[in-house]
């Protein structure tokens, strides 16, 4: 590490922002999200795949806003999240703590450092939820994948995100998201001349 400023531990930064943040009741939050999922299901006439896609789109547009809040609250500079590894650590340790109060970590890094799993200890979105059989295949928390993807895309890290384990779907006992790097989009001068 170069001399001069030292980087704050991402987990500490997340905890600090979580402490200082204005909060709403977890119950209100979980139920509001539930109402949103319910409405999308109804609009899509219980088409689970279309609902999953819609949730991911909702999440993505949230992500492009959330990332600005993240950058502003953490005081991150113009070169924040410049590597895929930094970006994943920022999501797992800082952002999930800061916005959802969730403790999370990255694991199972691929050899090329272009893929990992973000494992969450808790998931406030899934509180009170039990999925009936007819919604098998519904990725109830897909907005979360969308939000991560949208936020990272805004800082020019293109990824794919999907739940690797989802207790609501009876798969594993913790929520975990597999995140893969597609590309780090280079910064380009936007005009021709």
């Amino acid at each position, binding site marked *: 590490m170069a001399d001069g400023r030292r980087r704050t531990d991402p987990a500490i930064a997340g905890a600090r922002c979580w402490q200082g943040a204005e909060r709403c009741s977890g119950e209100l939050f979980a139920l509001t999200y539930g109402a949103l999922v319910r409405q999308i299901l109804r609009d899509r006439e219980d088409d689970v795949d279309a609902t999953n896609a819609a949730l991911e789109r909702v999440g993505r547009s949230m992500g492009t*806003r959330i990332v600005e809040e993240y950058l502003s609250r953490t005081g991150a500079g*113009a070169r924040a999240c410049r590597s895929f590894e930094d970006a994943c650590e920022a999501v797992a340790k800082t952002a999930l703590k800061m916005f959802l109060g969730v403790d999370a970590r990255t694991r199972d890094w691929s050899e090329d450092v272009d893929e990992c799993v973000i494992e969450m200890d808790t998931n406030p979105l899934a509180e009170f939820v039990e999925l009936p059989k007819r919604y098998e295949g519904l990725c109830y928390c897909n907005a979360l994948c969308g939000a991560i993807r949208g936020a990272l895309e805004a800082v020019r890290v293109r990824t794919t995100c999907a739940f690797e384990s989802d207790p609501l779907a009876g798969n594993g006992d913790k929520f975990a998201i597999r995140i893969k790097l597609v590309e780090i989009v280079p910064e380009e001068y936007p005009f021709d001349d």
Partner: protein
Amino acid sequence: MRLYTFHMFNARGECIHSRTWHRERESADENIERKTLFGLFFTMKDFARQMDPRRGEEDGGCNFYAYATNDYKLHYFETATGLRMTLTTDVNAGDLRAVMRHVYSNIYVEHVVKNPGLAPSEVFESAAFDQALDEYASVLANG
């Protein structure tokens, strides 16, 4: 301190918002001026990096944050999302990095990003943003 103009650009080089408090000379062509300014950001970043005699910050980047002329000073701020802001002031203004960050965090994020009626990083009109910015500018001007 005297404040002249404020501009905000998105990553595609579009001027998404601007504010003028004092401007004695009209610009010849605003579009060309903005394009030139945006080109300068890229050139200056490359230039700053090329001239860096040190290894740079731990994250490998260095960039300019202001330039001064004998007539005015231009302050610059950039975020990881490619948002860029400039503020022109008189030459006696000091280091305004904290001021630029304040505008981003407490004015742009609060009034534009959190406003569901506006899209982040797109051209916007917001009375709340303008009011907050003007208030902050007048505090700076009199401070």
